[in-house]
């Protein structure tokens, strides 16, 4: 009677993992074969009320792949992708795990699942020579969202080359139903070449030891969740993100621009640890589950809010929300007006300042435009005009910039959002109207259309004035 009561209590208390019955006969459990599910997709909920025997098989493979546009890397992978497939089991399940190391591998590999209670999280039981396979079994004793990774020496290098993924152990009652679930893993890469250096890049151990990555990415590559690879939801839906951090070194400040997490299951545990969260900290080799309802149409930007990682190293993803606008929640810009400060003090200071320098010649406009560019534009388009693949279009030899002067002026004057193609590559972002004077716009366009090999006629202030 008392036991029955305790059992009931355990079932009813949210966020409380009940004890697993180890005495059930595992040979009598229903056997379920799983097929791998790759990011950003999440395997469906188990929807089971009783434990099962789960067969999981993952192949480790070393292969060349895309890290950023024009940048290749030799990834070491679980299942041929970074991150590896997401595994979903239920608390109390008995899992037979097989690791197959492809014969073309140069390295032995293994797997440490943080969800596994046992020597090395399974690393000892899964250590596998190329061309062989290993099987071990474990009981899913602890519910939660867990990282798995390769733990073969040198362990840091196996992780740095891409060997990580997530295993979700659902609590017995499952998670509350939501409309969309996504699987996102952050990690960083340490290639020899600097960010953007083209060609096949080998691992740089020194940068890894110093913890100075060239790339910080979501789901394995710069732009892996951008443009047509963005994840999608509809207004009014509830979204859950299973977010992992493969590391190997950096702690993530996970944030979604334009949303607030309604609920966070902190550190990937099974109870809501906080509500109304702007940014949640996710340790290397750790996780978080976040949930939020999307209320208005917009493109939400997933970032590591250690923000230079997002804008300069690739830690950007997109969640596109479609549906009807709702001005009761957000209006968009309703007033765009000129702001003229009033008051004697300001006037008198302004009067002592040097008169604005009038620029007329090409050289003057070019020089003035350069300083406007560095102040207003370079943060996104980069000092060399090369842009950032998957996020900010290049200006170097840009057909979008050079083919149409009116469009170029319009873009700087009014801003631009939505899908465009630049030199055949699709971009779908937002450039704000920067509020530059017509003079500044003429100067900066003169500069960008005549730098880095670009060549065009000078833009004048009257050119800019004509574009309304």
């Amino acid at each position: 009677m008392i036991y029955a009561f305790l059992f009931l209590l355990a079932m009813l208390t949210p966020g409380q993992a009940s004890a697993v019955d180890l005495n059930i006969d595992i040979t009598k459990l229903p056997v379920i074969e799983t097929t791998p599910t790759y990011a950003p997709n999440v395997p469906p909920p188990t929807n089971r009320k009783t434990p099962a025997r789960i067969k999981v098989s993952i192949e480790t493979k070393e292969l060349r792949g895309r890290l950023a546009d024009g940048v290749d890397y030799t990834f070491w992978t679980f299942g041929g992708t970074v991150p590896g497939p997401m595994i979903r089991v239920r608390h109390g399940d008995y899992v037979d795990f097989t690791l197959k190391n492809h014969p073309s591998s140069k390295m032995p590999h293994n797997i440490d699942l943080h969800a596994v209670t046992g020597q090395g999280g399974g690393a000892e039981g899964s250590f596998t020579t190329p061309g062989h396979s290993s099987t071990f079994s474990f009981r899913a004793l602890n519910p939660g969202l867990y990282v798995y990774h390769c733990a073969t020496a040198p362990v840091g290098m196996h992780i740095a080359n891409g060997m990580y993924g997530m295993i979700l152990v659902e609590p017995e009652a499952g998670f509350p139903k939501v409309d969309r679930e996504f699987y996102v893993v952050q990690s960083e890469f340490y290639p020899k070449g600097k960010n953007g250096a083209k060609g096949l890049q080998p691992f740089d151990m020194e940068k890894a030891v110093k913890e100075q990555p060239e790339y910080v990415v979501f789901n394995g590559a710069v732009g892996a969740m951008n443009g047509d690879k963005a994840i999608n939801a509809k207004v009014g839906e509830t979204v859950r993100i299973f977010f992992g951090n493969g590391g190997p070194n950096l702690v993530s400040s996970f944030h979604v621009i334009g949303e607030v997490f309604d609920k966070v299951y902190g550190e990937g545990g099974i109870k809501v640890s906080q509500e109304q969260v702007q940014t949640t900290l996710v340790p290397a080799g750790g996780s978080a589950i976040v949930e939020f309802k999307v209320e208005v149409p917009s493109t939400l930007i997933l970032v590591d809010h250690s923000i230079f990682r997002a804008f300069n190293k690739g830690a950007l993803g997109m969640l596109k929300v479609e549906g009807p606008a709702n001005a009761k929640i957000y209006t968009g810009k309703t007033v765009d007006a000129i702001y003229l400060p009033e008051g004697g003090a300001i006037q008198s200071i302004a009067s002592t300042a040097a008169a604005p320098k009038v620029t007329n010649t090409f050289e003057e406009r070019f020089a003035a435009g350069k300083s406007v560019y560095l102040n207003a534009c370079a943060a996104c388009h980069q000092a060399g005009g090369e842009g950032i693949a998957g996020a900010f279009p290049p200006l170097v030899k840009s057909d979008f910039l050079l083919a149409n002067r009116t469009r170029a002026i319009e873009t700087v004057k009014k801003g631009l959002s939505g899908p465009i193609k630049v030199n055949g590559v699709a971009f779908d972002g937002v450039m704000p109207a920067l509020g530059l004077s017509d003079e500044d716009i003429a100067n900066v366009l003169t500069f960008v259309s005549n730098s880095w090999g670009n060549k065009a006629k000078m833009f004048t202030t009257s050119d800019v004035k004509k574009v309304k």
Partner: protein
Amino acid sequence: MKRFGLYFLGFVAVAAQCEPSHARAVIQIPSGVYEPFFREPGEADQRIVSFWMDKDPVSRKDFARFLQRNPEFGRGKISPRFADSAYLESWTSENVASGDSDSPVTSISWFVARKYCGEKKGRLPTVSEWEYAADTNSPEAFALISDWYARPNSMDQPPPRISSGKLGKFGIRGMHGINWEWVEDFASVIIQGDSRSSNATDNQLFCAAGALSAKDPTQYANFMRFAFRSSLKANRSVRTLGFRCVYDVDPERSGPKL
């Protein structure tokens, strides 16, 4: 390891009579000191006694000749105790080497590699001899192996050529950057499957703990090689694993005992 050694004693005796070895380029490795990559607290540097070593890894052509003399080591004939099913995987049943004869033989077990060297009156090098001859603690070795692993194998790629190997410090070719190679005591440094455990049986070799006993924890190439060896068993055949032989110095004629 003892168990394998015993098997092997019986194994050698059967094939003690063999044809004289084919002429091959061998190079004398001078005596010297090897600083072990992993060492027990207080363990000293190792004195390496001069020996002779094959300049090149054993080629497919070399091995095809060996099979002609010893057909019982052919694919499909050898006992699974001495070679797993991946043994000579790219060879036809007639024991004709596929691919270029300038390529090292791979997918070969420790037992057979040992047998091959024994027939030449040589033996497999020890870990210390191999590491010493390959000058593994040098930056050059690290650069070669880093470059090699960063180029992934594809299944349809032709096997590497011996002639593409770089000459090392002692004039030995292709010890880094073509394949891994068998050593006599591959299991002597036991790196556990879990690279970070630190119980008494694994000599505290790994990750955090391992880094403490490693000579230089930034020598990732060495970690890779030792980890690879520790994943092996004596009957394993791996596509990227070949071998070469060494020979003790013959005191009578100050050449290799051939």
